[in-house]
């Protein structure tokens, strides 16, 4: 299961073979103090007819420098404005905390069995083949009821339901679509699993990567991985 993820990461970052070898190390399991309990995770299991997403974001919480550029880029390409609350990826940090527990990254997992999709009473949350089966919100259909938010089993919830300027400040759900439907996407080829994701592209230290391989659904180890290459170590940081 691990090898394909690493291959995708390496391919994405065009790593040299030497650098790539480091990915054959153990994927790091990072446990924050506030994370969900495995027993409560409804994300694991079969998709019940919902196809798997063609892509996922994985992150390295030990490498992140907390600049929140990913959040600014996410909100920029989706909303045309920069902010933190509307970002689909969330960096949470405590200035007084001890490394590595001073910071965590919480991104949408594009769950194999997405509780949010199943909970939507309006079928506004779908896994459309046109967009690589990414779990995404159709804002036209979304009524802002918050069922998806309530259904998300993770803390913090990977969706937000907030007023949307484009819809006369009506409540609308927002979640990560891997930039598949980002109105302000900068690249002509667009985003989604086959395109470019703003957070991945902008991260100065390469702490976010894209993979097309389904991460391990139980726990966090599938999504919180080790992206530290040899030059990260050369800068005086651990690998």
């Amino acid at each position, binding site marked *: 299961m691990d090898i394909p993820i690493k291959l995708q990461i390496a391919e994405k970052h065009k790593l040299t073979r030497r650098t790539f070898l480091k990915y054959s190390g153990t994927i790091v399991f990072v446990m924050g103090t506030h994370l969900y309990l495995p027993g409560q995770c409804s994300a694991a299991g079969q998709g019940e007819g919902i196809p798997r997403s063609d892509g996922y974001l994985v992150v390295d919480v030990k490498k992140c420098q907390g600049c929140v*550029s990913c959040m600014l880029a996410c909100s920029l390409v989706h909303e045309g404005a920069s902010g933190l609350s509307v970002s689909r990826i969330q960096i949470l940090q405590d200035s007084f905390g001890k*490394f590595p527990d001073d910071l965590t990254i919480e991104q949408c997992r594009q769950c194999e069995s997405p509780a949010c999709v199943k909970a939507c009473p309006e079928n506004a949350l779908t896994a459309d083949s046109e967009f690589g089966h990414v779990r995404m919100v159709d804002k036209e259909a979304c009524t802002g009821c918050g069922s998806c938010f309530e259904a998300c089993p993770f803390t913090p919830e990977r969706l937000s339901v907030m007023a949307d300027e484009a819809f006369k400040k009506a409540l609308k759900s927002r979640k990560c679509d891997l930039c598949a439907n980002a109105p302000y996407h900068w690249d002509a080829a667009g985003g989604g699993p086959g395109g470019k994701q703003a957070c991945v592209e902008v991260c100065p230290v390469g702490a976010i990567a894209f993979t097309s391989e389904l991460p391990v659904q139980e726990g966090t180890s599938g999504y919180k991985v080790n992206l530290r*290459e040899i030059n990260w170590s050369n800068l*005086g940081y*651990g690998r």
Partner: protein
Amino acid sequence: MNGYAGKILSIDLSSRRVATIPTETYQQWGGGHGMGSALFFDKVKDKTVDGFHPDNTMTLMTSPLCGTLVPSGAGRTEIQGIGVQSLPIGWFTRSNFGGRFSSMLKYAGWDGIAIQGQADSRVWIDIRNQDVRIRECHDLELWGTDTWECQKRIWKHVAGNGVYGDWIRVNQNGDKTTQRPAVLAIGPAGENLSRMACLIHDAGNGAGQGGFGAVFGKKGLKAISVIGTGSIKVNNPQALMRSRLWLKDNYQFSLENLKIKNFVIGFQSPPVPMALYRFGRPRVGQRPQACVGCTAGCRGRYEDGVGNESICFNSLFYYLGRTHLIQRQAADLINRYGLNAAEMFTGELYLKTLHDLGVAGKGRDIDCPLDFTRYGELSYAEQLVKAISYRSDGMGNPHPFGDVLAEGFVRAADKWGRLKGENSDLKTGLLKFPHWGLPRHKLERSQLDWGYGTMLSDRDINEHCFDTLRAFPTYFKRTGEELPPSEAVVKTITDKMEPFQGDLKMLDFSTDNMYSDHIIKLVSWHRYYTRFWKQSAQLCDFRWPDFLNLYGPEQAGAAGIAEQRFFNDVTGKNFSFLDGINLGKKIWNLDNVIWALQGRHRDMVRFADYVYTRPGTTHTGFPEYMPGIKDGKWDYVVTSGRHFDSDRFEDFKTRFYRFQGWDEKTGCPTRQTLESLGLGFAADALEKGGKYKNA
């Protein structure tokens, strides 16, 4: 109004009135410092009031770039007002800090805050989007806490029943965030009005200069907390994203192609903590930590939680602390008690020297209660910090030593009789406070942009634009590494110094050139560039201007190209690099008008005596090298070990004032110059203040 939140918050602590000012009123100033100066000019009718006077107005300003994706330009906050640290007058001055305060303020819907008046009880300001409250400190028992504990108590209060790590509802409207409020707080030093008191945000973001911690303390203001859930509209989102990636692809460090492993100025720098502890960078598990939107964090967070986000002077403060851990703990001490690290670093060494000379100590001429037998241990640093912060003996008892020292080291030295006669510590150089009663930073006789810039303004400029020109040659000469041809380096930089581009001798730091008109142009350009692009647009001092860059074409950085590109992507304006320089010149002139109204005359613009008689030496004892012409050829020349000549500096000032279009006899901006800059109102104020009578 793309890039702007649209409103400035105006708070009068005396009347507890909260009002708003349309940002549009001050938009012509761009943001940050320009807006702050203009606001101050309008709000403070009598510019001669003391910094502790209730009429003194402090401004905390953002810029249109704050909170956006602009690289290393989204996280700074500019603070202005009449300071209480400098001599002979507490100048209208500035300070600046990074982190996430300015972005959070923008997300809450505010471009800045103006604070005037004085509360009749101890208060803190609670900003949650548009909901602004002046709250009593006693509810949370904030007064008396250190800056860290204060922030933690406010975080908890704002979260209410929420828990960080989850979404937090910040108000009755149900607005949510996962973020902690950004809090700017004072510690005991500010509460007890030490002129060295600073403002601290998060663990280590400090607005150190000016004594603004004491101004907060006098106003009865313990902290400002802000949480925002909104967003900042950008004129061209796609263009901004493309610009960010353009900079990343062409100028930013690359982990796949790492060319530098240490902290340096500019975008070629990798994310490395700029920790200057005597024992080097902490050797414990760590991450780099960055301000909002930065390409490369310059601070660190550590697995033992000690020294989080402490860099630069903070990490230097207790340089002779015996162990690495003690030095890091001492850095935390001055952050927690809220003291200016630069003055504490230079002052602490001065105090130790006075003790070693037999002057300071228990029962000596200077009755000093510090236990010097514990010098190098943490307990010594803690006693010193507490003595200043509480105006005591540092052990909980009232004592004149701490009371005097809280006024700052130069005022204390004067009180101790150390500034009299030919053996004055400012004549011998024992007290290394070369300008405005403020501590030395760079060697002013060597790094001329810094020395002149500081003496001709109001504070240690702390602007690293040309620092690379000293840092690299000085280091490489010691290590024996090969240096690039100095003429090529100088040409790369001066080509970007519009409108003076092409004059290579602006960067000739040789002794023969140190009073030339070329150096006047260098100092002028520096004043204009920083006043707008750094302090108003608020591009970070450590990354901008990106002059030299190993990743750039022909090793040239993004300076002169990138500033306006990002500014226009965000605002939609058609603003050129030169427009920024010209606006910077206008702001620089307005600042000088305020200083003139405060009472500045050219005769005050004079370094401490030792700077004219004693050779400049470095902290390390090694010589400094900078580009310069030697025997008719460009080279790297030794610039330390020399001193200024008093008469030649006076002549330099005369020509500098002439170059600015100011009165050569007084140093005061003339009506003609001010009107040409659209500052006729400022000329009117000078006339009304009697500043043109003898012109």
